[in-house]
């Protein structure tokens, strides 16, 4: 479905993506990466808005740059809004369908059907200026799926939505995937994409760092060096147990107003977490607070980048 062959994109001296090679068969994929990782550059390369500085991009067997045939088979929903404020959602989607080559009447009917499908039956005849964030996201999705594309490309589709809007959008996208259609969802939040697909591509600093299933990403999260902070009654004994078990790379103890603060750096966070529960249970410890200092996806990306550069 998608083929990147040694693709590099430079914006002047700034690197967008760096020597990416990948082959994706039809299916659902999550493109994960922190802000500025190169996700939008990759998406823009997929939809032909950018041409690679080096390498080749092929989507559904064709080059996407200025390719009218391919544009009939792709639906794109950008991360930003960019909708005309003074027109109705129905007019806007109709207009974009007409630009797909449909005549006015069928375009209007299809736009109406699609807007109803995404739950916009109430607001589709109102100007977009009065839409909530969720309504705008749904309208954007409607323009991307109305012409029944083979491949749907979404950039941060759940960003800024409230929990209800998020659940509704997730259900819509699940339905799309259930129909056996291909989709690529770019996001910087793992659990958002996890609810939709089990296949991930991890990108940071313009490089494709890893790819795999959700389980593999979670395993990666636990395998990378991580720091755990524990505020407890006896920091010294806890630190000693961690060192004795060989689970701590380094330990830092600082005395606080309420107990000691133990900062443990570890390569095996999953085992340390299991052991911590046992130590707390058998020992005479009172734990006031336990948190990983950097449990976000960002830490995974940082660590993967270090591994990539040979620093770890």
């Amino acid at each position, binding site marked *: 479905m998608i083929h990147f062959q040694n693709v590099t994109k430079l*914006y002047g001296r700034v690197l967008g993506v760096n020597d990416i090679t990948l082959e994706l068969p039809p299916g659902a994929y999550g493109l994960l990466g922190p802000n500025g990782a190169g996700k*939008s*550059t990759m998406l*823009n390369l997929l*939809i*032909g*808005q*950018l*041409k690679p500085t080096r390498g080749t991009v092929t989507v559904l067997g064709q080059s996407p740059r*200025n390719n*009218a*045939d391919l*544009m*009939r088979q*792709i639906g*794109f929903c*950008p*991360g*930003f*809004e*960019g*909708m*005309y404020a*003074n*027109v109705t959602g129905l*007019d806007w989607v109709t*207009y*974009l369908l*007409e*630009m*797909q*080559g*449909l*005549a*006015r009447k069928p*375009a209007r009917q299809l736009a109406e059907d699609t807007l109803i499908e995404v739950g916009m039956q109430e607001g589709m005849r109102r100007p977009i200026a009065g839409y909530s964030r969720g309504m705008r996201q749904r309208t954007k999705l409607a*323009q991307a799926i109305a012409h029944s594309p083979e491949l749907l490309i979404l950039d941060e589709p759940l960003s800024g939505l409230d929990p209800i809007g998020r659940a509704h959008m997730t259900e819509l996208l699940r339905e799309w995937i259930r129909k056996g259609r291909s989709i690529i969802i770019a996001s910087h939040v793992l659990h958002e994409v996890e609810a939709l697909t089990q296949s991930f591509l991890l990108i940071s600093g313009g490089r494709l760092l890893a790819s795999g299933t959700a389980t593999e990403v979670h395993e990666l999260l636990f395998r990378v060096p991580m720091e755990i902070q524990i505020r407890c009654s006896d920091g010294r004994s806890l630190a000693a147990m961690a060192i004795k078990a060989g689970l701590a790379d380094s330990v830092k103890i600082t005395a606080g107003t309420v107990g000691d603060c133990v900062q443990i750096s570890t390569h095996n966070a999953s085992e340390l977490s299991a052991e911590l529960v046992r130590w707390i249970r058998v020992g005479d410890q009172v734990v006031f607070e336990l948190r990983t200092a950097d449990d976000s996806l960002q830490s995974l990306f940082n660590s993967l980048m270090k591994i990539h550069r040979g620093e770890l």
Partner: protein
Amino acid sequence: MSALRAVFIYEWKRSLTFGRMIWWLIMAGFPCLITALLIWIQSTESPIPLDQRDSIWSMIYYITVPCVCTAMSVLLTAGPAIASELEQRSWVYLATRPHGIFYLLLGKYAVAVTWGFTAALAGLSLAVLLCNAESKMQIWDAMARLSLLSALGYAAVFLFLGALFPRRAMVFCVMYTAVVEVVLGAFPALINRITVQYRLRSLLVQWVPLSDDVKNSPAMEYAIGQGSPMAHTFWLLLLTLIFLVAAIAVARLKEFTAASESDL
């Protein structure tokens, strides 16, 4: 063709805002205002001699209608055609449609021509009614044709400049008009032949009832071409086509991404 029709109707509807309508009225009102002022001056000072009236009114309408009213109107609509989509970040929705850029630019071009030409026609019609020229119909007919050609030519030029420099489209359009169309267009050299002004001036001389003094003046000798009206119209339309094709080619070749949109 449905895509082109859709862009035209959609853009036309969007252009009918209060602010844009005010601009349309200002543009259409400009030749009327100049006419009213001249009639008032004639009533208080000495009137224009009868044998010079057609020449003088023709020159006045040439400057006020195809050169100012039409050119300014298409400048306001065709110049920012791409910049406006980039500014409101709507470009990507249109560019990811089959031949989206082609239809978008052509549709916007058609709207700019219609907008500019209707303003010129309305202003011209009222102004000619007010004036005291002898050959009103001939002047109106010539100016209407010149306005249409001016709208077609200038809209293509401004669309091209807008595609080339979307960040400062209006500035470059004004600079181009001043430097190339006004200054270089008046040079008695080969360069003036590739300006819209040169062709319009050449057609003006042949289409309006100018006096022999004006026609045979040294300034006119260098400022106009000698070909037939058909030849000048052909070259002007060819120039228009070249600029249109260039505008579409530039827009298709350039990379207008989300990043560059937000930079605007």
